[in-house]
């Protein structure tokens, strides 16, 4: 389990550097694998439909251990009598997994979903490091827009207007989040 946690411990820029090399169209490893398997090389970061998918893949690679840790802790806290009772009642392994484990873990799953959604609002570093806004405008997020308008073009009016809109959206989102958390107590 200590091995699985490792991608989470790396800094975001290190992860971006490695994956940028792997995603390279000519000399990257992923295209080498697809060509030896017989397919055409994929434009991972240069195809405008695929660039966002590649960034999401890097994010999944880095943060899946986080969800794994929370799920592991939650699953370890289920008493084993429930599983024995299910086995006595004759449930197969799939049915046990879907109908017993999942409802117990549903609060943890919800917690992980909220935390990851919050983290993806801050996806700024990976986007800039991997594609710098994407081929054309395709991987541009709100954060990169604010950054470009505020710090490259010094268009402070546009940047602060966008910041205010983001702030209002996130304030409403967090009110919903807090209501959910306080209703569970």
């Amino acid at each position, binding site marked *: 389990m200590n*091995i*699985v946690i*490792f*991608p989470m411990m*790396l800094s975001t820029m*290190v*992860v971006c550097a*490695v*994956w940028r*090399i*792997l995603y390279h169209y*000519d*000399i*990257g*490893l992923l295209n*080498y694998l697809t060509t030896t398997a017989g397919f055409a090389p994929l434009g991972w970061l240069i195809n405008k439909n695929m660039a966002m998918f590649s960034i999401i893949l890097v994010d999944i*690679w880095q943060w*899946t*251990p986080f969800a794994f840790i929370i799920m592991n802790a939650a699953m370890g806290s289920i008493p084993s009598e429930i*599983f024995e009772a299910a*086995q006595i009642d004759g449930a197969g*392994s799939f049915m*046990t997994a879907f109908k017993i484990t999942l409802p117990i873990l549903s609060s943890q799953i919800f917690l992980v979903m909220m935390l990851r959604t*919050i983290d993806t*609002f*801050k996806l*700024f570093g990976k986007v800039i490091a991997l594609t710098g806004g994407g081929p054309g405008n395709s991987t541009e997020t*709100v*954060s990169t827009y*604010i*950054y470009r308008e*505020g*710090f490259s073009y010094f268009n*402070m009016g546009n*940047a*602060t207007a966008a*910041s205010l809109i*983001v*702030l209002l959206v*996130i*304030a409403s*989102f*967090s*009110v919903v*989040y*807090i209501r959910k958390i306080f209703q569970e107590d």
Partner: protein
Amino acid sequence: MVINTKNKLIFWVFLIFITLVILFPIYWIFITSLKTPIEAVNPVPTLFPHSPTLQNYVGVYESGFFKNMFNSIFVAVASTLLSIALAFPASYALVRFNFPLKFKNVFLIWILVVKILPPVVLAIPIYEMFTNMGLVNNLWGLYSCISGLHNSILHLDAFRIS
């Protein structure tokens, strides 16, 4: 779940596959750092370098990398100490003192909003304020800007209640 040899085999295959997928980029970093620059950009990537070399590490040392890393560590430690020093009295006051209830909730919601916010939204007004205060190219600006303040307050708050 019945543990027989078939399930065990599936389990081990799955486990090895996931370990490989997770660890492979890290192995790739290590291997590429030992390759010569010509071999690193080879269109046919190799799993093990033909001629391992330590020249890259020498280049890293010569380019002043350790000074930058010392800066990073110093900034992290200093800003952590600053944020703990500020968060500890704040969380103590939040728990012990009977504020009118609306203020306490609004304050906590505000801290949560700041935690969720993309950092660039905060960076623009901070940048403008810091240019007027002269803290832009200064290390002290970096210390007071990178704040784990919100996290510290939330954690210390939960800890103090218990």
